[in-house]
């Protein structure tokens, strides 16, 4: 989620140098020295400097992906009691076909979709509202509040889940006590409760981060426009909603789309919370499904196939996000 959303800051930053300036620079340097021929020495030096990146990139990105592709085409076949040696059988697309027709796998996408429908609107509207409030003329102690809102984001997802796990436990949690004292009932076992209990944690964690992004984008809104709005008789509320929010619409839409991509990878929170929110099964999200296939069922071929299918989906979505993002920029 982190690295993906960081790129959202792009649209709000200064516009890129016009191409002409760069060309002028290259031309200027070109006039000073002889036109460069690719020298052997230079190539070697460049290779040496580039080597660490490529070595690490191949060892930790390309190779594992290729290895997963390889694994996904095979299946461990045992025979009889399964006590003898396992045979690695080439099965082609069988693992992929099985994943796509496995109700546990397909329903995990449904769960993520519902979760996104709850989590994302709440989180984006909340962060936008807070950012606008911080940016308003009446705001006091902006630095403090920016830090305060940001703090939950530095808590790792796993720890956040543990904290909330306790806050969700009856007879231990002050929140549950308060709900019960005011006459409400507390029941985390329903399907809806599962979605809301997870969304609550992620909203708590990620709102502050987006507040910072939106607040930064708001700083780039030209003063003249706001002054003009004031002169035209717009009050602070109208300015915030009709002018400021619209002017950072690009940042908001890109943040939203990146949040979707991040939200799809939900894993640690439901894994921990499933003991309390009992509607969460061990294959509730795509990542949980993959984890279960690989480490509970030891079916690495199947896990690789479902992981790659999931990765392709995320890849397609990220591509769409970038396309839409650049459109929103224009």
């Amino acid at each position, binding site marked *: 989620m982190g690295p993906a959303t960081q790129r959202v800051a792009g649209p709000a930053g200064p516009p890129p140098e016009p191409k002409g300036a760069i060309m002028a620079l290259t031309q200027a340097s070109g006039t000073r020295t002889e036109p460069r021929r690719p020298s*052997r*020495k230079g190539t*070697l030096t460049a*290779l*040496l400097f580039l*080597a660490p990146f490529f*070595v690490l990139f191949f*060892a930790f990105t390309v190779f594992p992906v290729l290895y997963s592709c390889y694994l996904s085409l095979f299946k*461990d*076949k*045992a*025979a*009889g*009691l*399964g*006590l003898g*040696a*396992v*045979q690695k059988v080439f099965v082609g697309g069988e693992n992929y076909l099985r994943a796509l027709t496995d109700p546990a796998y397909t329903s995990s996408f449904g769960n993520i979709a519902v979760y996104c429908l709850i989590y994302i609107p709440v989180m984006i509207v909340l962060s936008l509202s807070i950012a606008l409030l911080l940016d308003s003329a009446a705001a006091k102690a902006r630095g403090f509040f920016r830090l305060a809102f940001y703090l939950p984001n530095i808590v790792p997802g796993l720890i956040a889940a543990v904290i909330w796990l*306790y806050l969700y*436990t*009856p*007879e*231990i949690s002050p929140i549950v006590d308060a709900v019960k004292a005011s006459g409400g009932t507390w029941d985390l*076992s*329903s399907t809806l409760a599962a979605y809301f209990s997870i969304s609550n944690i992620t909203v708590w964690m990620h709102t502050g981060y987006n507040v910072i992004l939106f607040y930064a984008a708001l700083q780039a809104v030209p003063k003249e426009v706001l002054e003009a709005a004031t002169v035209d008789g717009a009050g602070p509320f109208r300015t915030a909603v009709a002018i400021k929010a619209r002017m950072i619409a690009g940042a908001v839409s890109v943040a939203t789309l990146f949040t979707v991509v991040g939200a799809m990878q939900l894993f640690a929170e439901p894994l921990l919370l*499933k*003991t*309390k929110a*009992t*509607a*969460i*099964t*061990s294959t509730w999200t795509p990542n949980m499904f993959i984890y*279960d296939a690989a*480490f*509970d*069922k*030891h*079916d690495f071929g199947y896990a690789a196939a479902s992981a790659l299918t999931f990765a392709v989906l995320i890849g397609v979505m990220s591509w769409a996000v970038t396309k839409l993002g650049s459109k929103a920029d224009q």
Partner: protein
Amino acid sequence: MRKIRKTHVVVAVAGALSAALLAGCSSGTAPAAQSTRSGPVEITFSSWLKGSKQVVEAFNASHPDIKVTFKEVASSKDNYPALTNQVKAGNAPDVVTVEYPHVSEMATQGVLQDISKPAGDFVKSKFDPAAQSLVTFGGATWGVPLDAGVLEFFYREDLFTKYGIEVPKTWAEYEAAAAKVATADPAVRLGSTVVGDSALMAALSWQNGAKWGGVDGDSWKIDVNSQASMDAMKVHQDLFDKKLVWADDDPVLQKKQAAGQMLSVISGAWYGAALRSSFPDQAGKWRVAPLPAPTSAPATAFYGGSTFGISKNSTKADAGVKFIEWMTTDPAAISARIGGTSSTFPINTEANAAAAKTFDKAFFGGQDIYANAAAGLKTVPSGWTWTPGTPTTFSKLADGGAQVKAGKATLSQILDQAQDATVADLKNRGISIK
């Protein structure tokens, strides 16, 4: 000249890097280092069981010919994924710890090696018949049993007197007692539900004569939803439906137990020590009785318990088995493990006598809890077998338990679901099912 030299350097660097990468990739096939003939044989051992470090220290001190290096595992949950990965990578410890429900899973995943030759006769002659089918199947021995989590009835004697209830001998009496307690005080219950605890569901089915798995020639038999299992679950479904037992999860249940709102716990023999460390202020108030039985004939089952095996890539099975034999049967090993703080119930009789002697009985008001477990061990139906599909059975029952708690399914329905999921999982792996 200079240029050529630099090329050499680059080629050398690239070569070294790719060699390092290749080495990293192929370490899985590298043979384990051979032990030299002079000096002790060095073996490694991994476990999460309490007291393992002390056992290893005691062994090393008394056995100059074998040197064991201990590798701690965080929990049993981490143990099995770690072992399957380590065997794939070729760096699994020589001696590994595997609980009963996972022995056949680990054997079929290629984690355990067949130890019939070095340990087969030893297992047959030194351990109770009830434990045999748990470690020996398919004509081979895969592990050596350490302890038995004999399922027992732990109860608060003081509160039983207060509410005027007798220790139940059958599940019918248990239900009557549960009703009496709930009526006497709505804030108090006799015990907690089995819903959500897959291993306990298995143990209670076992107690009723069910066999969730078996071997028939070259095939496994899966029988999770047999009539015996269904019958065993009836009373527990009833207790849950009528809210005669608590249905809370751990931290809440612990709180209720601490407050004296829960009068009894059904658990394995190992629970005695856990009880003492969790509720030290309730010392002297707890007692142990045989598990309530389906009929007037006493019966119980295993709920927990571990074995030791030799990993597939170990080349030192003989030394490993020697260490295992000592760990599971030598009184010195058991004394080192227990150290006054564990209530592990060793299956081997000599080791058991040492454990009973070492365990401090004060918490149970001087009652000999080992005698109760020993009597229980004799009433465990023999022939229970855990199949390689057990993890699937358990996770399906755990997911289903949530459905039962939400009132959307019954225990008998989730037994059906678990049966289907287990069969499908094993078939997918190419394992033969009858």
